[in-house]
């Protein structure tokens, strides 16, 4: 309890005052005798930590209490009492989570206590991909891995490929140090949630590193374009909090919100008005709005824009642009007027389903914001937290995979997150050596030769830089429970490997990571106690607005697979709230969480609009085959009343061949059938770049489970 009220007190009192009282009396005494992780508390204790389920890096507090588990020793079963994590909540001190947490973050405890975790280092027994492993000792595993890594390193360190999560912090710093000690190339990521396009656009247009922060809470009129910021985007908790403030947090002020998106996402569902854009028409839409804004003389600072951009906008034809978007010009005019006349207008743009022209779209939104004069202002776009250690690069992973010999996988699943056409399976089965650090045997770890399981994030020490945060923020988590299994933190493993190879490597501990950024009035202990280091953003100097540069690489046309007659539907897989890039699929709570759109549980459907469904004689629950020029899959259909005719969407998450009992063999992976089309400036997979055909299967409608099958409030019957 004390810890809890401590947090509550801290959140109201200014930081630093209560700093020395990290714990209650018993807490200060006991650690002298027993280490922190060995305490089995009978009373609840709350410890700060970091959520590692996505790159948002929310600060959390974790409730620890006694729990019981069964262990087997020498053939006998024992009940053992250990300190166990009961619940995860947001850390009230953390400016990102603000004491709140999304469904996925709260389910992190289920990945900690997942029945199918890898409990010890393992060596491959069967052929690659069959996921047959035998447990080995750490010494043996590290010996073997460092030996072969040594051979590769001395032969060609350029052929070592390290895939890691798109997150920055102490962990990624250790990885980078490890790789540079080996003279190997820096790590890559193949996560679908890297938001590389958004990062690139902000770098190109503003020269910022990172995803810009949208100060939604203080805006009055918001136009969202292509960013599902309340669903599976960069920082759902942060933006949902902002959204609550935006709507009803200010007395007498209710922010108005228009969302233009090619899918009725959760964000669009929360909007006052949804503009259904045809996929890939975001640049056209934004250009049209910008043009109308200029025409209406509502642009506050037209000189901001580079002349080339300004000219191209001025030469645009609104009517034809509107036609491309599938929208009415009058509607665009009304929205533009409202946007331009608002006290605090804001355009939030992103690429929830990246297209080949997404960079152009996001850049166009930045131009529009520049015209609206909200850059760096309250209620506008703010510069990101730039104290980042370099993020893992995004690039054409499939080519890099083919070019490498030695693959190290850190929570990355290229088999799942690359299209079948990219040939990741074949590449992986031919590589010389694959080492996985993942605590679960996923589709890609199934190909690994060695699995050196990492601790769960809640068992490990780490400092994470949140992807989006107001001001500068580092979230810190230190271990407070004994690791459940014979696992090792990644940095320990890397250090051990490096030492075996004769290289010197110091792990970047959270303490080391934070210390360099520590302001003079704070100590490491305070940071560790509170769970992070948070500072106000430096005030923009004077009225200086960042340089707005032209985004060159932008295609305006969306590149899609050819043969429109045979493949009449746009197909857009998207990052969902519950599964994100697919990594949440192994959590039973996420599987049984009714999908916000279809209310589906334990299976993700394909979302089809009612018109097309009627034409193809498809009803909700029917099985359909979705066929692209490259591949096909079968999944149940959901006739989504709000789907745009001709646009088929599907959440990413199902279709894992291996990923624990709750995800293995469940549903279909929409990535698999995608065209291997990349967004050119970043090398991100263009999720929206594929067209498909759909056919109903004559299979009994079974296997599709909805929590609430009925999606209309009234019954279908009236007088008739």
């Amino acid at each position, binding site marked *: *309890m004390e810890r809890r009220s401590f947090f509550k007190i801290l959140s109201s009192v200014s930081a630093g005052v209560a700093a020395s009282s990290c714990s209650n009396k018993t807490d200060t005494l006991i650690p002298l005798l027993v280490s922190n992780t060995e305490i089995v508390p009978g009373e609840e204790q709350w410890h700060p930590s970091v959520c590692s389920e996505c790159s948002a890096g929310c600060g959390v507090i974790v409730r620890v209490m006694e*729990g019981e*588990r*069964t262990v087997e020793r020498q053939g006998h079963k024992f009940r053992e009492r250990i300190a*166990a*994590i*009961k*619940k*995860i*909540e947001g850390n009230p001190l953390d400016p990102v*989570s*603000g004491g*709140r*947490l*999304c*469904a996925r973050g*709260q*389910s992190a*405890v*289920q990945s900690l*206590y*997942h*029945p199918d975790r890898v409990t010890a280092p393992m060596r491959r027994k069967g052929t690659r991909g069959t996921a047959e492993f035998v447990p080995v000792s750490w010494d043996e595993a590290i010996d073997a891995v460092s030996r072969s890594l040594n051979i590769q390193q001395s032969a060609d360190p350029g052929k070592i490929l390290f895939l890691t999560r798109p997150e920055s912090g102490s962990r990624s710093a250790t990885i980078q140090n490890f790789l540079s000690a080996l003279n190997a190339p820096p790590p890559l990521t193949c996560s679908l949630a890297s938001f590389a396009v958004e990062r690139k656009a902000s770098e190109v247009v503003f020269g910022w590193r990172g995803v810009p922060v949208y100060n939604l809470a203080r805006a009055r009129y918001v136009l969202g374009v292509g960013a599902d910021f*309340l*669903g599976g985007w960069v920082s*759902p908790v942060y933006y*949902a*909090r902002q959204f*609550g*403030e935006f*709507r*009803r*947090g200010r007395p007498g002020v209710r922010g108005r919100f228009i969302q233009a998106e090619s899918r*009725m996402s*959760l964000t669009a*569902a*929360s909007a006052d008005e*949804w503009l*259904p854009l045809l996929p890939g028409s975001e640049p056209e839409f934004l250009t049209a709005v910008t043009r109308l804004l200029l025409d209406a003389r509502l642009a506050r600072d037209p000189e901001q824009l580079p002349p080339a951009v300004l000219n191209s906008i001025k030469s645009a034809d609104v009517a034809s642009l509107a036609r491309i978007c599938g929208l009415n010009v009058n509607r665009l005019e009304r929205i533009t007027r409202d946007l331009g006349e608002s006290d605090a207008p804001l355009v939030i743009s992103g690429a929830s389903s990246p297209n080949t022209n997404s960079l152009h779209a996001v850049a166009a939104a930045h131009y529009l914001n520049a015209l609206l004069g909200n850059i760096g202002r309250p209620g506008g776009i703010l510069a990101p937290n730039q104290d980042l250690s370099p993020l893992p690069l995004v690039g054409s992973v499939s080519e890099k995979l083919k070019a490498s010999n030695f693959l190290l996988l850190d929570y990355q699943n290229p088999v799942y997150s690359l299209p079948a056409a990219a040939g990741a399976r074949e590449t992986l089965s031919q590589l010389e050596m694959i080492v996985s650090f993942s605590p679960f045997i996923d589709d890609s770890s199934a190909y690994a030769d060695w699995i050196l399981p990492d601790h769960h994030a809640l068992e490990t020490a780490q400092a994470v830089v949140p992807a989006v945060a107001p001001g500068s923020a580092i979230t810190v988590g230190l271990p407070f429970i004994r690791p459940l299994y014979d696992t090792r933190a990644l940095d320990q493993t890397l250090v051990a490997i490096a030492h075996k190879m004769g290289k010197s490597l110091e792990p970047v501990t959270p303490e080391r990571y934070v210390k360099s950024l520590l302001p003079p009035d704070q100590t490491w202990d305070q940071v560790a106690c509170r769970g992070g280091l948070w500072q106000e953003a430096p005030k923009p100097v004077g009225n200086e607005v960042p340089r707005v540069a032209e985004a060159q690489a932008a295609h305006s046309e969306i590149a899609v697979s050819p043969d429109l007659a045979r493949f009449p539907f746009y197909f857009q897989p998207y990052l969902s*709230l*519950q599964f994100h890039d697919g990594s949440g699929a192994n959590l039973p*709570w996420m599987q*049984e*969480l009714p999908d*916000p759109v279809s209310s589906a*549980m*334990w*299976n993700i459907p394909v979302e089809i609009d*009612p018109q097309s469904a009627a034409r193809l004689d498809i009803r909700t629950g029917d099985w359909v085959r979705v066929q692209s020029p490259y591949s096909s899959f079968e999944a149940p259909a959901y006739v989504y*009343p*709000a*789907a*745009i*005719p001709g646009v088929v969407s599907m959440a990413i998450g199902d279709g894992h061949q291996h990923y624990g*009992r709750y995800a293995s063999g469940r549903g279909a992976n929409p990535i698999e059938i995608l065209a291997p089309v990349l967004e050119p400036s970043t090398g991100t997979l263009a999720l929206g770049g594929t067209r498909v055909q759909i056919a109903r299967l004559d299979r009994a409608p*079974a*296997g599709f*489970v909805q*929590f609430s099958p009925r999606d*209309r409030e009234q019954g279908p019957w009236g007088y008739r």
Partner: protein
Amino acid sequence: MAIDLDRCTGCQACVAACHAENNLPLSDPESAAKGRAFHWIRVDRYYEGEFPSIRVKHMPVLCQQCDEAPCEPVCPVYATYRNDEGLNVQVYNRCVGTRYCANNCPYSVRFFNWFDPVWPEPLPLQHNPDVSIRMTGVMEKCTFCIQRIQRAERDAASEHRQVADGEIQPACVQSCPAEAMTFGDLNDPESKVSRLAASGRATRLLEELGTKSKVFYLERSE
């Protein structure tokens, strides 16, 4: 409790929070297909209108803790009744499983344990020790996190003070990122929830039934 539908984004953080706090049984595809998944709080979603002028209505629905609850009098063994604080409580040990209460709940927020719940090891480590695990054959439903209410009251009593407004937060309220949910004492006219309930935007679900429910929905209208 008051739920601001204008803030609610339908993100279902509350649903997960409830599972974590209240040891809800895990479903599996088969039991879920049989309509036996547990969600003490659920987010109802309704589509209104047709494309393109279609809107979505998200509405978190949990036990409305009615003052005049239809579920209570039909129970033959007093397994559910209204306690002194006005909560509609479910006494698992008394329940014999007639399921009449669930039929008579107009909000369909009651859930039945068709079997003994099963969690594969080591998932039970996560169980909240403050909340009992329900056996087969008994009804269960949202309790407004009565364990949190009692804890706050105990703490306040030991510190010789009143429970402060907003001090008690059920798991769903605590988790809600958009802060759409507000919990407090409706008997105290000064509490935040009372003020919200008195605001013009407040309605109650199926108010026409006269259940005097204690969850107020603040309408989304502009």
